[in-house]
């Protein structure tokens, strides 16, 4: 087995150019990384001036624990995400969860928001939302004055 010297030389040349290419790529990469370190904004696609839409990749984002949607405090139930997506854009979920209304009054509240507060047409989500609200945030019968609730009694000293 005697390899011709020509073939050997060609192989060496090929190896040399490959090595050169490799070194060049590494150098370019280094230059790019240094550039990013110096001016991180170079990575940004400035042509897009659209407002950045935050997309949460985190699966924890809509986590439900003990029947409560942690991020908003809403009770778990059919229609929950329709409520989260339509009712927490302008105001916090707390404005919903602290209230108790009949279906009729929840509907009147939606109409009021549509007429005066720029709420959009809820389309097919509306019955879903109304069912959810009138199920989980319905009025409870209370007397003319509830009992006092004391979370923790304490000793009052002089």
């Amino acid at each position, binding site marked *: 087995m005697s390899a011709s010297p020509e073939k050997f030389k060609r192989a060496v040349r090929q190896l040399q150019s490959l090595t050169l290419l490799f070194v060049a790529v590494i150098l370019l990469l280094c230059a790019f990384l240094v550039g990013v370190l110096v001016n991180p*904004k170079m990575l940004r696609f400035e042509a897009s001036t659209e*407002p*950045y839409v935050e997309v949460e990749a985190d699966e924890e984002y809509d986590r439900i624990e003990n029947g409560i949607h942690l991020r908003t405090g809403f009770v778990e139930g059919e229609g929950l995400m329709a409520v989260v997506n339509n009712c927490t854009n302008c105001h916090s979920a*707390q404005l919903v969860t602290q209230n108790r209304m009949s279906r009729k009054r929840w509907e009147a509240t939606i109409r009021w928001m549509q007429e005066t*507060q720029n709420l959009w047409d809820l389309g097919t989500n509306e019955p879903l939302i109304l069912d959810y609200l009138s199920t989980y945030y319905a009025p409870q019968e209370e007397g003319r004055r509830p009992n*006092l609730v004391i979370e923790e*009694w*304490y*000793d009052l000293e002089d």
Partner: protein
Amino acid sequence: MKRRNFIAGAGLASLAAGLGVEIVYGSLLPEGVVPLVLQDPDPFKLFDKDTQMVVLNERPWNMEAQAHLLDDKVTPGRVMFIRNNGLIPQDIDPSKWVLEIKGEAVKKPKTYTLQDLKTNFKAHTYQLTLECGGNGRSEFNPPAKGNQWTVGAVSCANWTGLRLRDLLKDVGISEKAVYIGYHGADIHLSGDAAKEPISRGVPLEKAMQDETLLAYQMNGKDIPLAHGFPLRLVAGGWPASASGKWLNGLSIRDRVHDGAKMGGSSYRVPCETVAPGEKVAPEDMCIIESMPVKSLITYPKSGARIKEGRRLIIRGHAWSGEQRVSKMQYSIDFGSSWKSCSLEDPVNRLAWQHFSASIDFPKKGYYEVWARATNDKGESQPMVLPGWNPKGYLNNACHRIAIKVV
């Protein structure tokens, strides 16, 4: 919109300065993304509030005190309730702040800088009671829509500024003037710049009172941001919503002001009383003016256990809109019998009055101490809920605290 612009324009350096820490990799934040810490701030730090304050709503910010936090004679900012209808303006430069006076009944529209208001008009200071019209809403049945305030949406701080009357004189208003509407720099929740979150006001007679101020100070310092910095209309004794925050405009109207939250069921109650839950037509609703007679036991905190044979000191404040409180009583037997409290005069008209009493309990057991104020027109606080109304305003039922004698 404005808030976004502010954040974008502020630059990371100033953001970092505001946060007190460097935002590591801050420059990698995509344009328009607000650091989480500013999206979801600690409201107690953000507004310098006592951590026992209760947040009812984060957007818009609504926060109330608990009765025992309001024990000071002059309410400090740390325990003053926040009631916002829109988003707090963020790009305030007091040196560029301008108040614009306009409307059908102004002789000629005029503008004033904040400096004009501070230097060209005499300053007055009054301690003024501001109570949210919906304070106590949480007790109504059927439940009323809105932030479910319990007892803590009331304050009585010192406010310093010029009299609205002096400003109106300087502007020159016509004989047609009947109502003053305010305009503020807060931002509508929908972000719609054409909408005002709230634009209420007061009739001319209220505007002309000595105590109706365009205030630029609260308790001797610049008004805190959440309470209307740098300028606020303050109309004590009326629903606090009449005291417009972040004031940048006044409309001198020849009719009842028709700004946002002046109509419908907002800050209005049935002109004639209705059965609980009854539907009321808009034309049958009347604007709330002077707030009703009310009181709050601010010491001790509800839930106190005391030893048998020990006397209990109670104290608190009483107020009655435009009226003066003339009598203060307490009951430890669920309203069967009432005893007098000692009651101080107000430091000025429209300021709350302080009361105290020393209570002797006959034997061991569970007690409720109820407090009842009566004003100089003979009106007293009811022991149960007063008349139901669609939005649950004006609950002035007796305040109650629980005591165990052991």
